[in-house]
């Protein structure tokens, strides 16, 4: 499973070309996981899998086939079928030429231990969480997974890229025995040694105990202090639609301008807000190129690079794939992945101390877009909502549903901590005013 092996298989596919171009993506993934709940291990698994996607392209037509059959015959079938599909397709009026050779950045996101770890290597971490739960009379549930992915892309024009990455994730929920408190903590890293189940279990347990027997607070507008996981959940929604230049140009987005056009160059957030894609940042996962997918359009295969989407509160760049960039006369960009929201210098304690009345939010759950034109989202607080009064946390609060736009949240910022990894993004905790909650949730 290395670069040469991927290249050999891909070249074998490319050699089957008869006419037109072929584009190939090969992904091999090995993953291993342990689930636990009710203070015991429930299910665990180990999976080796592979997927090959072949797109045949010629003169405005393309057809794509995906298979996990990498035998010689399987490769031939995939190419034959892709070509057959291509030749049945009408001409695509938004066709872009096959990508010429690209220069991809080298990203170090692989850890050998993350690939080798098996059930026995994860067991001590899970045991630490279960032991802590027993000792503190809590009920633990969680997930521990390590995986490695090797991905190669290539096409008939001579482009080739290879990337290997690992991913380790541990998350844990600790619920109190009376069912009134619940805490959660999670961490991700490409490196197995950097995920510490014991400290995460302690954090979840503390949150669970502190959140028990919550007090009802009325829905309404609150100053909120959003912990990094809550910020990440809101900010990452911007990837899917809001930052699309096409959606904005076509009048379908929060960044559309009244009367037509987009809001590039306008101040859309507080001046402290800089939001960028940074594949070079070691603490966020990234691929060397823009991945194929329903949201990536014709940006697929473009080298990933640093892009500032919002800089000092001003909308600087919007995601434009190769087709839309060509149509509207801008440089194409990679998909807005690997998001980094620059933070401030305050501590979480200082943000709390400076708040007369507000709510501290651990994380959000079930976020959905309600109105794409304002990017209003709805969702709920979960696993620790706390009332702040006169600079101090005074009580756990019953969970609330919010209806709010992250764009408004980023305009109303009153303070930020430094950015830390959260939900595979790098974001700060944020204090923001007038965050709207619309109803109470009885869920714990």
């Amino acid at each position: 499973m290395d670069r040469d092996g991927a290249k050999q298989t891909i070249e074998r596919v490319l050699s089957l070309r008869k006419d037109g171009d072929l584009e190939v993506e090969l992904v091999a993934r090995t993953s291993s996981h342990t689930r636990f709940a009710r203070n015991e291990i429930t299910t665990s698994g180990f999976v080796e899998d592979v997927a090959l996607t072949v797109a045949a392209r010629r003169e405005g037509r393309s057809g794509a086939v995906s298979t996990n059959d990498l035998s010689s015959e399987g490769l031939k079938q995939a190419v034959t079928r892709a070509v057959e599909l291509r030749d049945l397709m009408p001409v695509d009026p938004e066709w872009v030429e096959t990508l010429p050779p690209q220069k991809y950045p080298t990203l170090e996101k692989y850890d050998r231990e993350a690939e080798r770890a098996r059930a026995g290597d994860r067991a001590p971490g899970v045991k630490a969480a279960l032991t802590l739960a027993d000792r503190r009379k809590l009920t633990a549930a969680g997930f521990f997974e390590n995986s490695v992915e090797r991905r190669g892309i290539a096409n008939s024009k001579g482009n080739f890229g290879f990337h290997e990455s690992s991913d380790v994730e541990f998350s844990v929920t600790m619920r109190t025995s009376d069912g009134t408190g619940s805490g959660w903590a999670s961490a991700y890293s490409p490196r197995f040694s950097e995920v510490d189940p014991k400290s995460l279990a302690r954090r979840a347990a503390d949150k669970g105990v502190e959140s028990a027997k919550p007090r009802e607070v009325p829905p309404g507008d609150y100053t909120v202090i959003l912990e990094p996981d809550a910020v990440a959940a809101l900010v990452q929604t911007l990837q899917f639609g809001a930052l699309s230049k096409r959606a904005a140009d076509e009048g379908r987005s929060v960044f559309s301008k009244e009367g037509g056009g987009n809001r590039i160059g306008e101040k859309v957030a507080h001046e402290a807000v800089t939001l960028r894609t940074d594949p070079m940042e070691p603490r966020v996962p990234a691929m060397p190129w823009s991945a194929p997918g329903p949201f990536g359009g014709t940006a697929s295969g473009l080298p990933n690079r640093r892009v500032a989407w919002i800089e000092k509160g001003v909308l600087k760049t919007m995601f434009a794939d190769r087709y839309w960039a060509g149509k509207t006369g801008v440089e194409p960009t990679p998909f807005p992945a690997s998001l980094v929201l620059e933070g401030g210098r305050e501590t979480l304690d200082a943000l709390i101390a400076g708040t007369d009345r507000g709510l501290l939010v651990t994380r959000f759950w079930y976020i959905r877009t309600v109105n794409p034109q304002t990017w209003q989202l709805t969702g709920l607080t979960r696993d620790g909502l706390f009332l702040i009064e006169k600079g101090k946390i005074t009580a756990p609060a019953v969970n609330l549903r919010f209806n709010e736009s992250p764009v408004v949240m980023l305009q109303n910022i009153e303070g930020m901590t430094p950015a830390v990894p959260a939900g595979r993004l790098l974001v700060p905790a944020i204090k923001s005013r007038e965050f709207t909650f619309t109803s109470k949730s009885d869920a714990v």
Partner: protein
Amino acid sequence: MHGPSRREFLRSCGASALALAAFEMVPGAFVVRRAEAAYPAPDRLETLGSVALEKARSLGASYADIRINRYRTQNVLLRSTPDWTTGTINNVPSVVDSESFGFGVRVIHGGAWGFAASAVVDKDTIARMTAEAVAIARAHARLRREPVRLAKVSAAKDTYSTPLVKDPFDVGVADKLALLQETSDEVRKVTGVFSVTGFMEQRLEERFFMSTDGSVIRQRIVQVAPEYTATARDLKTRKAKTRTYRPDAVCGGYEFIEKGGLVENARRVGEEVVNHLKAPSVSPGTKDLVLLPTHLALTIHESIGHSTELDRAMGYEANFAGTSFLTPDKLGKFRVGSDMVNVFGDRVLPQALSTCGYDDDGVKTKRFPILKSGLFVGYQTIREQAHFIGQDESTACCYADSYASVPFQRMPNVWLAAGEKAASLDDLVSGVDDGILIDGRGSYSIDHQRYNFQFGGDAFREIKGGKVGAMIADVAYQSRTPDFWQACDLLGDQTTWQNVGLNRDGKGEPGQINAMSHGCPASRFRGITVIRTE
């Protein structure tokens, strides 16, 4: 013009269901040896399956099963949008055909589960991965509080196939694109429509299950799901609206796409999206709601479907999807809805998306009550968890979305029975003084114990003085599951009942998807909180 059929495709590959090809291996590290070109014949599947079961037994496993499955998906898409510079319509087609094949083996050893899966389906790999599954179970057995207990099951040697007339993989992609093009052209005849996106998903699951309980089961499941969405926009006011038409997604053949009324409904859909764009915002407040099946299906799914999953109620999903307000102490005692609310779990309902012969525990599928006259009477269960509520057999709700996924409890078809008394949509509406008629799915969100929810919709009409009026916009309603279902005061009769399929329900860690249907009649709910989402 017709595309190559699935059978022609297999023939062109030089493979048949009976052939075992020893293909030349590709050199290099990415080699995946595929012993089977097509889905193997029954005796070959049994031979391969026996390798896992024998290996598991020899290593001391108390239970083992293997699934050797093949999946095929074809997604056909056509997006029609005006060109940015010329304004002429760009019809952008896309077809992606995906296929995968592999096995997953599950064992119980020392009272703990182990699971391993691979896309390499040969005897050596099956034996190796079975040993891996046993090793996992061994490593984790000491972190079990008590051994896994499986409810009884009858050994079955059986087959099941989705009844269908026209295999969707036998229909050429050109025909499919032509239907989407005709639909798009028809929608676009309405002035004010900006773009149209049509989509058809077709799925095939060929499943083989074999267990140490003596079951050998083969199933062939076919699902189709067509839809299209029209968009209208107003650059001056910076507003945009969409309207989606979804004929029922079903277990069945291409005939359901052909008779799904795609073209016949196109003008209406176009007119409604344009009207929606011009419609005034709702005045928020407490209102009565008349919900059409196309909308109510998702509300049933989120509020009743997920809250009556036993694994959630017992805490198995506490770290991700959440738990449930319907804890086991409420079984048989807690009133979720009004007297008229009768809800069933069902994996035998014809055409419904979760319907099959056997679940992934090898249990024969069935129908079972969930709410009876509003009372909570039944959970969705799997073999491992039935004993938690004193039952000695499961309700056959075990499913894995891939050979590479661990089977666990998934939602069956969960449907609301029609009202017993004659009641048309007009009857439902006529009793409403100030209300809203909601059609189709919109934004949806519910808390992690399935109490508080907020649902939007796809199209809204005002109801005033017992009559349906003009379209309104920016509507969502909020409620709490028991409050909402107890506010149900009239169900439409069977003539208003419709089976509505949902095909992308997510659950579990690692995440898996699932498809099921939620049949229901048009229904009326009193005094629900409506908010404006402008």
